[in-house]
């Protein structure tokens, strides 16, 4: 059986920042939680949903809240036990595994730490294959799987059971509760059977994230051909190579928005502008959209290949803007309606990234 060990943590984190597309939070704190959990409880088994009892209960788990708060006040480690217990009681059967909602940012590593603490395997799957800012933006929503019931806990021991009529409302209630919980909480929702998971989740996401991280770290290690190998594995293309010349950050209704502007290294008349709402959403070259959400836009360091979180951007950095096609289920009319540019308030149509080959 495959296991996630201490040696995998850096790779998993490096991959999580690539798939985080600028958002999802710096995985540093989650990395240490996972390190301590593996040191305490041992390596974490990774399983395919198809190999589990088809009626077995799988619980997707995530941290919710502001990454800026998470660097200051983080979890005590018992929150997951509380929300999982509450959910198992609500559903009426024990869980056979946990899984990540998203393989982007800190929520890639946190569920693995939870699995270690609970002695459960983690399912090699997620519901986004990238980071998205809202709870309803999952392939489970596309498959008609309700987020409800959801359980939520804070670090002090308060917990909430949410029953909602749709997934949009789940997002609103969880967000409001989390604000009252000191901006950090742990959530379980979209509980599903292994059969549903095998059919509806994006399977293989954890392994995919880990492999991306390995290839990114090979670039940093100076391996010959590592950049090409990384791009090929991700089906990614470098759309622009430039220097950060401007970063504008602003808060709109509590959401961190911003614009980062890159000037081309070889041709300074070419300018690329990336619109950010937690994640990188749209890249415009000279005012024309070149890539749009749900396709992935990630900024990576020209030399080390390390991906940048929005918080880590700074003037003068020399970055490649890489674009990767979103998972095929996001590139359907339903997927675009749920997580395309218009969902984020842009008056722009989705522009499917043309994939070579």
């Amino acid at each position, binding site marked *: 059986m495959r296991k996630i060990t201490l040696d995998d943590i850096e790779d998993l984190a490096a991959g999580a920042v690539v798939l985080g597309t600028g958002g999802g939070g710096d995985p540093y704190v989650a990395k*240490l939680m996972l390190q301590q959990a593996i040191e305490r409880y041992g390596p974490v088994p990774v399983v395919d949903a198809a190999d589990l009892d088809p009626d077995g209960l799988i619980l997707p788990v995530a941290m919710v809240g502001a990454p800026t708060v998470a660097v200051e006040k983080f979890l005590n480690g018992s929150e997951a036990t509380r929300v999982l217990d509450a959910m198992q009681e609500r559903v009426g059967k024990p869980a056979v595994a946990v899984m990540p909602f998203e393989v982007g940012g800190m929520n890639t590593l946190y569920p693995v730490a939870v699995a270690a603490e609970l002695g459960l395997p983690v399912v090699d799957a997620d519901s986004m294959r990238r980071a998205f800012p809202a709870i309803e933006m999952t392939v489970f929503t596309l498959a008609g799987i309700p987020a409800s019931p959801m359980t939520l806990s804070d670090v002090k021991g308060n917990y909430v059971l949410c029953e909602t009529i749709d997934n949009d409302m789940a997002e609103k209630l969880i967000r409001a509760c989390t604000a009252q919980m000191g901006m950090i909480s742990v959530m379980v929702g979209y509980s599903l059977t292994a059969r549903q998971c095998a059919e509806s989740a994006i399977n293989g996401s954890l392994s995919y994230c880990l492999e991306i991280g390995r290839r990114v770290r090979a670039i940093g290690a100076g391996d010959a051909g590592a950049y090409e190998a990384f791009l090929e594995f991700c089906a990614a293309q470098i759309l622009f190579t430039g220097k950060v010349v401007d970063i504008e950050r602003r808060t709109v209704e509590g959401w*961190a928005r911003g614009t980062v502007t890159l000037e081309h290294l070889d041709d300074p008349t070419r300018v690329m502008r990336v619109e950010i709402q937690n994640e990188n959403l749209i890249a415009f070259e000279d005012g024309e959209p070149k890539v749009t959400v749900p396709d992935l836009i990630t900024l990576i360091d020209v030399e080390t290949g390390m991906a940048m979180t929005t918080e880590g951007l700074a003037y003068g950095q020399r970055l490649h803007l890489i674009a990767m096609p979103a998972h095929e289920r996001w590139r359907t009319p339903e997927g675009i309606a749920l997580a395309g540019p218009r969902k984020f308030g842009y008056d722009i149509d989705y522009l499917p990234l043309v994939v070579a080959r």
Partner: protein
Amino acid sequence: MNSLRVGIDVGGTNTDAVVVDPVGEVLAWHKTPTTPEVLDGISAALAMVLAKVDTDAVGQVMLGTTHPVNAIIRRKGLGRVGVLRLAAPATLSISPLTSWPQDLATTVKGHTEIIGGGHEYDGTEISPLDETAVREFARACHGRVDAIAITGVTSPANPDHELRAGTIVAETLGATLPVTLGHQVGGLGLLERENSAVLNAALTFVGNDIVTGLRRSLDKYELQADVYLTQNDGTLLDAAEAIRRPILTIGSGPTNSMRGAAYLSGLSDAIVMDVGGTSTDVGLLVDGFPRESAHSVEIGGVRTNYRMPDLIAIGMGGGSIIRTTPQLGVGPDSVGYQLTERALIFGGDTPTLSDAAALAGRAHFGSPEHATSHLPPATVAAVMAWVDDRVATLADRIKATRTSLPLIVVGGGAVLVPDTVPEVSKVIRHPHAGVANAIGAAIAEASGTIDRTYTYATSSRDACIADAKNQATDAAVLAGADPAQIRITTVTEIPMSYMPGNCARLHVKAVGPLLNT
């Protein structure tokens, strides 16, 4: 009139000292190799410069030193620390020192506890401070530790619990045991602030040794000068603060060098290139200060939230070795401090960039005729073209915008840099560029900073920013700055993502010249 200032900078290779007068004229300077016992080199450099000036006129002595970072890297002279975190029930998932290199943690870790206390982002308590647990922690530390580090969640915004816990520890163990409080040494980021507090506590003896050692050296000259150490942001800590907060002096070397370059050139916005024997660092001056790196800095393998100058380093210096077979290549290996023995122009047998520079007419030292047989004109031309290309690329890489900036060249290998560089308005050299770092220490100013979370819902954004600026200004005055000359040098605003409520983290720094009393 105590109007002269002495600046000293201890680097990896050399210890430099300068004396400057009130209008910034360099009256004396000296460069000497850094010694294994760092204070020996400081004494030697001091002796040379003080012999050239009226010692009665010296009012201030500013020191930038690698002592603390060396202590951490070599794990020498470090104290054992009792670590208390005020956070429970939050943060129990990551123990203090989890991310530290094992050997350093073993050297430093005394007793550790996470107890009830700390604050939410909005200033309310996570839980009340568990005073009984603080007393038990203190008793458990009795006789087992040399210093204590106390860090509470969100303490930069609300230090009450840290202050109260510090008082209880002092009541229990006596006021002589050094106690570091997190909000005194770090900004937001609990683990990074806790790491800084623990490193600071571990440096208790080192900080004391530097200050008392320097004072003893000065006593020989019956100098009644005020003693300061320079911080990584290019501003000053007075002696008492340096003993309490030695961690803040970490990494002041590159900053001093860039501040010195700014001072010598009279420029506040420029590229600074420091060419040494083995490597070249390039940084950017913005409003007279080095632009800071966006990344957290690791010290001896420990992550902190200090910002260092944003430098790009490459393996090119005056001692870089030129290879001619199998194909032409330069560095990154260097003859380093053996330049005057091994370079061809000094009678040695190793072709270096200094040899090529002498043959190309850029450098005027040594005997270029010794180098001609090893380095034919075509080779010299190829090597200098390589240097010019690296210099141009480096100058361009560090720039934030396409505007053409001047380039200030400092350091012993400055002769390598050509007089014209593409996209650079002019290349500036100064006769004292070799001791720019000590000059940077001598002209350093006092500062105050604030780093905390504000909620714009309760008062307006403008009012919050004004409050942060006032607090930073007050802190600068407390540090000795002239209130009439204080300016705000940094305002960074980071909105909190993913959550409503309009919260932002504000980081503000105020700086001003020392008040002459």
